């Protein structure tokens, strides 16, 4: 599977940007908690606990806020400055998740913005890298 290099058209982005970000954010934290529960995401929560995260999908102008505690992820509020802020276009986030592209490569190419606690960013990156999708039904979607 190859993700074409596109940015969301402005009209679509405008609509997406105006939608409340709670449903997608809820979907995100639910997925994270599920993956964690099924031990696909082998996460040491003590490394993430107490931290807040923001995923900013630039071309959709959508900001997803979530927080971690000792045992799960939950929807966060977008009023505080997150400890870790990640920003990229939707296609680049998809490439990272599908392992078509290495986050360092996107960062070197200035397509991924990382702000805040750099070490936390590294923990999150390494966590996602360590997921063995071949052990899940999602395998057929993944590049490796």
């Amino acid at each position, binding site marked *: 599977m190859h993700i074409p290099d596109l940015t969301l058209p402005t009209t679509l982005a405008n609509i997406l940007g105006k939608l409340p970000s709670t449903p997608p954010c809820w979907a995100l934290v639910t997925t994270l908690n599920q993956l964690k529960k099924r031990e696909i995401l082998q996460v040491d929560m003590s*490394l993430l606990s107490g931290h807040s995260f923001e995923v900013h999908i630039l071309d959709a102008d959508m900001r997803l806020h979530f927080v971690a505690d000792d045992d799960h992820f939950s929807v966060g509020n977008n009023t505080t400055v997150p400890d870790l802020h990640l920003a990229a276009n939707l296609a680049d986030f998809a490439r990272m998740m599908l392992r078509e592209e290495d986050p360092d490569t996107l*960062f070197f190419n200035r397509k991924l913005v990382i702000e805040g606690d750099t070490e936390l960013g590294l923990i999150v990156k390494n966590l996602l*890298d*360590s997921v063995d999708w071949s052990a899940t039904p999602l395998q057929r979607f993944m590049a490796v």
Partner: protein
Amino acid sequence: MPATRPLPELVCPAGSLPALKAAVDNGADTVYLGLKNDTNARNFAGLNFDDRTARDGIHYAHQHGRKVLLAINTYAQGGDISRWHRAIDEGAALGVDAIILADIGLMKYARDRYPDLRLHMSVQSSATNYEAINLAQDMFDIRRAVLPRVLTLDQVKQVIDHTNVEIEVFGFGSLCVMVEGRCLLSSYATGESPNSHGVCSPAKFVRWEHGQQALGARLNGILIDEYQQGEAAGYPTLCKGRFEVEGDTYYALEEPTSLNVMSMLPQIIDIGVAAIKVEGRQRSPAYVAQVTRTLREALDAAGRDKQRFAVKPAWTQALSKLAEGQQQTLGAYNRPWK
């Protein structure tokens, strides 16, 4: 020189189980990895292998007929060196094909305890001449030495011609320009260095500042570099920072480049290099897959017909995208020094 040399082993990095599988699936002969602690020089939060993932990874590689090396390539620190001893014990128990060591004290420990365990001398040992390598062979029976990225191809040949220890060289990845193992820059800025803490420019000291115009990289408060809009960024290591020297601000030590020896593969095979190493245990499975696939293709092509070997534009393209700073160099290999 024999007419046909065996192809050098392609040695690829793995910071996680998926990366290990990516290396194996894309044609690595050998994979190297580290444990989750400061006994290896990529001691990054969340990276590396615990007992279970190491077991799974080694099983996967062996099932596919590939080898696994365990890097224990930092220097045992101060009062408590038990962690390093335990790492060696663990490697032996896991059944890795060899252990990569830098510290001679650890070489002795491994040799005494596990006479059958194959030992490789790490690049961090900083052995740049055959006498050092032959001495390590005499004393600890090391079977392979990884050369620092500071030698020219002629110098590598010199070493190979005077030792029967296998020689491994770096083929692709970010450059560490100092005679590795002897660099103090990271310690100077942060108090932690690859040899002592297993990491150069630890992430906890790094801050990225997104200004209006430029992206600033700070290491423990020290501004190392600023990247303008659209300018490729690099790792925030001191050696690749821009410094003001006599009124000029430039990359005074090294540009943020990546090493790529693809165009030299025929010579590398000719002089009898035993293995080519890819840097990057800190990188993702996507990087490992792309680099391994590309170098596998290139190595096989060079092996089939050295005379007519030419680097394919597609290979260069695939690798340059992944490179730090998006520039590639032959490093010291093609310098005219003798």
